[in-house]
Structure formats: C-alpha cells, structure tokens
C-alpha cells in the first residue's frame, strides 16, 4: 500500500502478499486505485446486460480470450503468430464434432475439454516442428500465416458427405450447423447455458432476464486475465519476457529457450481453443471463415492497438475494436481499422492502453517525482 521501506515477506499483510502475485513490471496497474477501478469495471460488465445488448458483448468477450492468447504468445514471448485463429477454429470444430456425436450433458462437457485440448495439441504439433526445427522470427510468422491459409482451403472443400466424423458433417463452405446447446455437467446434474434465460427481479429496478452464457464467458474472461497476470509476473513470466527481448541472450543464461517458446505457444493454442469452443457454442454453428485471412489478422490488430505487451491492452482493445467494427458500415470499418493501426504504429507503438496508463501514473506522481523513493510503484517492484 503506502509504505516506503523495502517490505520483507513476514511483515506484509495477507492482502498485500496476495496482491503482489498479480502485480509486477510485466502488467499494467499496481496500485490500489487500479484494483478498485478493475472491480468497478467487472461490476459494470456484470450489470451491463440489464441495460445493453449482452448478446453482442458476450461475443466480444469470447474474442477477447483469443486476443489474450496472442498477447501471451507475442507480447510476452515474442512469437508473432498469425495462426491463433487456426487453434481457435480447430477448438471450435472439435467442440462441434464431439458434441454432435455425444449430445448428452457429459458428452458436451467432454467436448469443451476436447476443444481446448484440440487447440493446445495442434499448437504443440505446429510449435514442435517450428521451434525444434530451428525456425525463428519472421519465418515463424510466415509459417503460422500459411497454416491459416491451408486450414481455410482445406475446410472449405469438405463439403461432400464423405467429410463427416461420426454424425458430424464438416460441411465445407456451408459450415457445421446444429451444434448442441452448451450444457455442462453430467446427466442429472447439469446446467444449460444457451437460450436459457434466468429471470431475476430487483426491487426498484424491475424484472429482467439474465443469460447464463454471458456470465459464463465473463467469469472465464476475468479468471483467465487474472491467471495470466499471475503467470507473467512470476519467475516463468519474467523468462518469457526475456525470451521476447533477446532470445540468444536468454539462452546464454541457461534457459532452454526452444522449450519455453514451445510451451508458451501450446498454452496460447489451448487458450485460443477455449475461445473457439465458446464461439461455436454461442453461435451453435461454425464455418471456415474463422480461418480466413481477415479473421487471422484481427487478433494482431487488436493486440497491436491495445498494446502488445499488456494483457489489459489486449482485452480492452478487442472489446472496443470489435464493437466499432460491428457498428460501422462495411468498408468504413476496415478503413477505420487501418487508420487506427497506422496511428498506433507511428505515434504510439507501445499501444494505447500502456500510454493511457503512463498518463495516469505521471498525473498521479506529479512532475519530478517519477521513479523517486516515494513513487508508489516502487514497493511492488521489491518482490521475492
């Protein structure tokens, strides 16, 4: 909180120690003010469906998970992957195939796990061949981009009825419809999340219906964000950052950089797979447009504009940009996106959210105090 002496472990209170797991030089926000603002923001998201279009926001939150997956892989380990949508799509299709074949609550729950595993496994396979094969830097980007194109072309031609896995026809261009509604649990003890509005009544406000799916996504998003905060501020997270900054140097400190990139890439794939599962569950439909070039570029755009080295930036930018994109007429949205990207690269290469944070921190500290012993951020840097 507000002490200036270097804090040592036994003297810090439990809340401070807990908080320190989530804070560090690799994420934005290490002051009490930030956390209060965070809680307010989450509360606002929780209340939003009462006033606004929760269905649309649930889509953006699902996509924010995809943005986070790229942030972890690119912002924190330096691997620019255009292939996150590949793992997203594989997660979505896997969920669809398994849930169509086993349309019971237990089966659908297993399908969710299968989708996440599908995303992670495909990332592991691609990552294995790339990283252990010595592919680096821009060639990784090219290969991930190519894998997106390959998936798109392949899935688009799976129209014939021979392209079916059990009961689930892949459907080619037309996609795979009739994905069962998302139900978690087992027979007899399950809960259905889609199209299952939960009526609520609050005195003074009235009665309204809440969508369980929206809250499921909100919980997953907040949980993933916090979990990733802990990860990137941990020892392992610092190594990830070192890999991003200078691979060769980090190798020379005794770290197995190849394995680190492989592990992080797999984690990113699993996270993208989760996002894909939720996407397919929300639309009860999936088609090959998730492998399209435009969709492959979107995560890169979100994360670049939001600030690639910032988890918060990835989430905020995804929500904001997707909202803008949906609200604007066709080509105008693309023009806006391109302009935003240009502005970011030219003026704020670190991204918007880190810049905003810096303005807030500078304003709070006042001129001349930045970095001094009274700086509120200093206490959180002294970590174990």
């Amino acid at each position, binding site marked *: 909180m*507000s002490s200036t002496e270097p804090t040592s472990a036994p003297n810090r209170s439990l809340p401070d120690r807990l908080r320190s797991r989530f804070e560090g030089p690799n994420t934005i926000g290490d002051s009490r003010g930030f956390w209060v603002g965070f809680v307010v923001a989450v509360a*606002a998201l929780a209340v939003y469906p009462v006033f606004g*279009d929760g269905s649309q926001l649930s889509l953006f939150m699902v996509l924010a998970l995809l943005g986070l997956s790229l942030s972890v892989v690119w912002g924190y380990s330096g691997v620019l992957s255009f292939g996150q949508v590949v793992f997203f799509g594989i997660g979505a299709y896997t969920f669809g195939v398994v849930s169509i074949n086993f349309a019971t609550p237990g089966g659908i729950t297993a399908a969710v796990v299968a989708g996440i595993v599908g995303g992670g496994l495909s990332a592991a396979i691609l990552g294995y061949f790339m990283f252990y094969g010595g592919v680096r830097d821009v060639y990784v980007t090219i290969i991930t981009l190519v894998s997106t194109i390959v998936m798109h*072309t392949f899935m688009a031609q799976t*129209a014939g009825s021979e392209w079916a896995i059990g009961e689930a026809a892949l459907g080619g*261009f037309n*996609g795979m419809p009739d994905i069962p509604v998302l139900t978690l649990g087992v027979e007899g003890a399950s809960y259905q999340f889609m199209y299952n509005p939960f009526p609520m009544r609050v005195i003074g406000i009235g009665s*309204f219906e809440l969508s369980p799916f929206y809250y499921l996504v909100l919980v997953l998003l907040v949980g993933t964000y916090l979990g990733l905060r802990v990860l990137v501020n941990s020892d392992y997270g610092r190594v990830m950052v070192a890999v991003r900054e200078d691979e060769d140097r980090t190798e020379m400190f005794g770290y197995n950089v190849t394995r680190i990139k492989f592990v992080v890439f797999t984690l990113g794939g699993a996270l993208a797979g989760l996002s894909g599962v939720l996407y397919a569950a929300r639309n009860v439909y999936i088609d090959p447009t998730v492998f399209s070039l435009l969709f492959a570029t979107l995560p890169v755009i979100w994360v670049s504009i939001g600030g690639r080295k910032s988890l918060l930036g990835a989430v905020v930018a995804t929500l904001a940009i997707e909202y803008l994109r*949906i609200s604007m007429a066709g080509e105008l949205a693309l023009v806006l996106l391109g302009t935003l990207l240009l502005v970011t690269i030219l003026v704020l290469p670190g991204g918007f959210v880190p810049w905003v944070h810096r303005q807030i921190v500078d304003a709070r500290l006042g001129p001349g105090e930045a970095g001094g012993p*009274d700086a509120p951020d200093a206490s959180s840097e002294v970590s174990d």
Partner: protein
Amino acid sequence: MSRPSVSRRQFLGASGAALVAGLAGCSAGEGGTSTDTASSAETLKIGVLEDQSGNFALVGDPKAKASMLAIEEINANGGIDGMQIETFQRDPQSDNQRYQELTRTAINEENVDALWAGYSSATREAIRPIIDRNEQLYFYTTQYEGGVCDEFTFAVGPTARQQLGIVLPYLVEEFGPDIYTIAADYNFGQLSADWVKVLANENDANVLGEEFIPLSESSFGSTINRIQEADPDFVMSMLVGANHTSFYEQKASAGLDVPIGTSTAMAQGYEHRRLDAPAMANIYAGVNYMEEVPTDSNTGDGGFVDRYFEKYPDAPYLNEEAETNYFSTYMYKKAVEQAGTTEQPEVIDALESGIELGTEEAPEAPEGETIRLDGATHHVDHHMWIMRADEEHNVEAVENRQIPETFLSETAGCNLPENPEQTQYTPVDYYEEAE
C-alpha cells in the same frame, strides 16, 4: 510521505464516467429484454438483410433492390390487408458473423414479421439455427443446391435439380451424351455436380470427367486442355465467383467452342454484359429468370424490367435472384391476407396450403401460366427457361416449361405440415450414381 489523494479520486471518477458513457453509447435499441410488439395495428415489419458490399455485393444488391421495389408497390396499392409495410433493411457485408448479429437484432429487437436474408448457402446455414430457435418465418431466395427441409425456412429460389434439369436433357438431345463437368470446389459446386450425374443417368448420358476448381483459382489453361482432350459433346459449368469468370474469356481465346450448359453463369453476374464477345457464346443457362426472359410482364412496356430501372436508373442488371425476392414478397402478402393475421404460425400455415402467383407478380411465368409454392416442401415449382447467348452476346430463350421440385417431395419425402423438421438432404443419400 504524502500522496495527492485527490488524484486517486480523479482516476476513479474518470473511469466511472468513462464506463457510464460507454454503457450509454453501447446500448443500442431497447436493451436486453423486449416485450413490445413491433407491428402495430396499422403496420407490419419486414426484415431485408442482403449483401450490398463485400464478396457478394454484385449479386446481393439486386436482391435488396427488388425486395424494396415490391414493398413500395404493395404499399402504394394499400399495403397488406390495409397495413403498410415497414422495413428493417441492413447490409451484412457478406460477413456471416454480421448476418448472425443482424438476424438476432431483426428477430429480438425489431420483431420482424418475416425475414429475407442471405445470398450464399453458408449464410443460410449460419443463421438457420437462430431462425429455428426463434421460430421466425424466413425466406431464402438464392438458387442453391437444394434439399433444405425446414419448418420455418421457405427456400423459394430454384434448386440445382430444377436448373440443371431443364438444360441438361436439352443439351443431350441437341449435341450428344458425353458430358464434362467443371464446378466450384465447395458445397454448391459439389452438390450440383452430383445432380449432373443423377440427371445424366436419367437421360442416358455419361459424365466423362469432373473437375472441381478452388474458388480462388483464375487460370484455366490446364482445365481447357483437359476439356479439349476429353472431347465431350457439351460441358456443364457450375463455376462461381469473380475469379471463375476468367474461364469464359480464356476458353474463347483458346478457341474452345464446345457448348456449355450452366446454372450459375449469366443470370446472376451478367457476364454477357461485362465480358467482351464472344466469351459467352454458346452458353446455355438453365434459370428461372434473367433480365432477358421474354415474358410480357417482364420485358413488355411498364413491365418488371421497366419498373426496376425506373426506380434504380443506375443499376447495372436485373438478375435471377432479384425476381425471386420480388415474387416471394407477393407470396407473403397473399399468405397474410389468407391467414387474416401477421402471426407467424398462421402465416406459415397459409403458405403451406399452397400459394400460386401469376405472371404479373412472378414475371418468370409467361401469360396464363403460374408458379406454385409447394406447401409440403416449402419450395417453388418454378417456370424454368433455357437462355442462350450467341456470338454477339444476344440472349434469347430456347425452351421453357414448369419444372416442379421433386427431390424433397418425391425422393426424400419431406412433408413439413405433417412432419416438421429442420434438415438438409443431399443427393448422395439417395442416389448411387451421385457418389
């Protein structure tokens, strides 16, 4: 140690204000729940979601225009049962995700009484779950591979079996039994090629070879060579999209003049106007409608073509799907008047009792003929035409007759009033020769 506490409050205040502003900006329309009805006693509301930008803009835009033309005419003539038609029209930009969002908006917020949406089959499949979940009356008007047996969907465009079914037998008789198929490598192309095999079998013809071409492909040199080697009596072409247009130009340069039967070229993308002659020479299009269809109600004075270009003087062409949007709007009008209400279940019942339209409202049908909505399958028994382009790209009709929808009604046994379902059937399930 002092820390300016006012700035923390400022931060909270700013973020709070930003959130509230965000909420205010974000909420569009009536919000999460909606209990009011969209149509008052005086009006009803129709949703029109057609591609006016993006990949399918060329073929989607005339659909939107034709729907609006029909609605304008109906309103000018007293509306439907005295009710004026309001519209919720948006451009989903050939983007299936946008289609899903707009469909949800149309149903949940705009409470449309009927919805027209989508060009491609992928779009239809993307929104069909939403349609079915919400029991929304939905008209799908594009020519497509056929087989959709869905209690809420009225796929009123011509099916592949109908389109190929008029042109293939004619070409077999005129030119001979050996066929070479080229088709776009995705659902529509593959299923159409399956129908070619089925029809060939029914007409004692043989398919010498099939070639499936990726949508992104635009160089056809090797395809043209293979056609020349195979030396078929005619070619069946189900190529789709901008890239595939270059096939026709390349074949003309290569001097390949074998007759070509098609369900996709000319009627939708008006290649005969856009490409230089004689690229489309000797092309036989099997369609329910194109701008040149020689019925009085179409090309006569004050006919459909005249009315369309009066409203849209800058439009480049009046394509196949536009006519389907047009007549299906009139079919809806008839059904509502028959049902006496806009309540969707009753209107669907009225549609299922079978609706017929004459040439005035369905310009594809010649004077004295009608087209019929088959209540059991929700498909239309179209009046089909073979339209041929010559060396100067003049288009004239070669043959025409009504072709009923048979796959669902006879082969698959789709009977929606008795057995409501939400399925798509494919020829491979029923015909050995389609495999």
